[in-house]
């Protein structure tokens, strides 16, 4: 049985983990290498690094952070934000990323997804989509939620999959940081349209929201960030609640995640 995944997202800026609300007001919450290892020990099924400085500013430290993280992390690591062209993919994978996620660059150059899938396999190409409800469509935004496009998230997700994406990371800009639940309509519409896994993102406030993402949103995975970084709950607590409700997540390791 394939387990619904709980994925911990770390927004990384200049080598530090930061968190903001609706992509703004960024606060420093820690060291990415340490935090990633801690979340694996707590039971995180995957880790995502989103380099939030990448689209706008220089990002020289990202490869180094990925390399140091991969030395101690033994669950999958996805890195996004640092990919602007196909040539950026190889170095990130070599540094220790298992998947790369592409947002703005894929909108600008959709062929990037095809090239990535051909060279490295679609399993390592994640299409990241940021969407907001506007004018009767799920409008896609690029550049960290600052630049509107004419793309509808459901149609764009299907196009990304057709081009070669093996997974869709779907963030609701409206819900991001609000902690009152994922945008379930958006999640379900995309999940029911594309034949690849969909990761619900934006809005996690408590375990029940993750359950809703899996059951009502038809998501394969749920992304969690702020409530963990702020210490409001732990991956272990979230998974414990989910298991109590019959959601078959992978149990948290009992020995702290280090090899016996």
């Amino acid at each position, binding site marked *: 049985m*394939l*387990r619904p995944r709980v994925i911990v997202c770390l927004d990384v800026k200049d080598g530090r983990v930061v968190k903001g609300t609706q992509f703004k007001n960024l606060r420093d919450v820690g060291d990415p290498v340490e935090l990633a290892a801690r979340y*694996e020990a707590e039971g995180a099924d995957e880790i995502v690094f989103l380099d939030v400085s990448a689209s706008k500013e220089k990002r020289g430290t990202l490869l180094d952070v990925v390399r140091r993280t991969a030395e*101690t992390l*033994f669950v*999958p690591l996805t890195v996004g934000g640092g990919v602007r062209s196909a040539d950026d993919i190889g170095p990130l994978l070599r540094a220790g990323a*298992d998947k790369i996620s592409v947002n703005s660059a894929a909108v600008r150059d959709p062929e990037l997804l095809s090239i990535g899938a051909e060279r490295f396999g679609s399993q*390592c190409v994640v299409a990241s989509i940021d969407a907001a409800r506007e004018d009767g469509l799920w409008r896609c935004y690029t550049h960290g939620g600052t630049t509107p496009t004419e793309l509808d998230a459901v149609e764009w997700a299907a196009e990304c999959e057709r081009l070669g994406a093996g997974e869709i990371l779907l963030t609701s800009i409206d819900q991001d940081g609000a902690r009152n639940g994922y945008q379930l309509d958006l999640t379900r519409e995309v999940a029911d349209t594309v034949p690849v896994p969909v990761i619900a993102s934006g809005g996690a406030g408590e375990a029940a929201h993750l359950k809703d993402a899996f059951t009502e949103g038809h998501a394969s995975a749920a992304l969690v960030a702020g409530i963990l970084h702020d210490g409001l709950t732990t991956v272990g607590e979230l998974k414990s609640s989910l298991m109590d409700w019959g959601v078959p997540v992978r149990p948290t*390791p009992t*020995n702290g995640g280090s090899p016996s």
Partner: protein
Amino acid sequence: MHVALFDYGAGNLHSLGKALEGAGAEVTVTADWDESLSMDALVLPGVGAFGAAARALPNDRTRLRQTLADGLPCLGICLGMQLFFDASEESEGDGIGLVPGTVQLLDAPIVPQMGWNDVDTGADPIFDGISELVGYYANSYVCVPTDAGDEIAWSEYDGRRFAASVRRANTWGMQFHPEKSSTKGRRIVSNWVQLAREVIG
């Protein structure tokens, strides 16, 4: 013990190298078959496409196949396991032909199979000390051995039971990624290093 970690030129070798080193192996990343087969043990990692990896195999598969059949300790992960077989539906090119059978596309509503899936482990010593294994998968294809006796572990996806792991001689294949399967996965890697040590004496 010196382990050759074969480099097809695609994907993340870093975590697997670190897991092997953590288990006490000395790791050399190499794309040279003579060098690979001269070491104590061989690891075929698991990222990329079958066709590209098949092109990275030596033109004459006989020596590689025979070396493995003769007992060189080997671990193939995901695509690396698929290369042990004759051929794949994914792309043209011959595999190593060590394990008779083919590699077939997963026929399911959501492909790739992406995430953690239960692994029903058999009695093979590669799984010593591990119970209730849940392995991390990222695959669109599965291996179908001609002889079910080559299978040593199983998972199920969309109602289809498939080989999670195979073994021939001292060659083990894992369709999931032990190096990405947290504590229990690392135990598999260290079990393999231990078994390889026993083989080379």
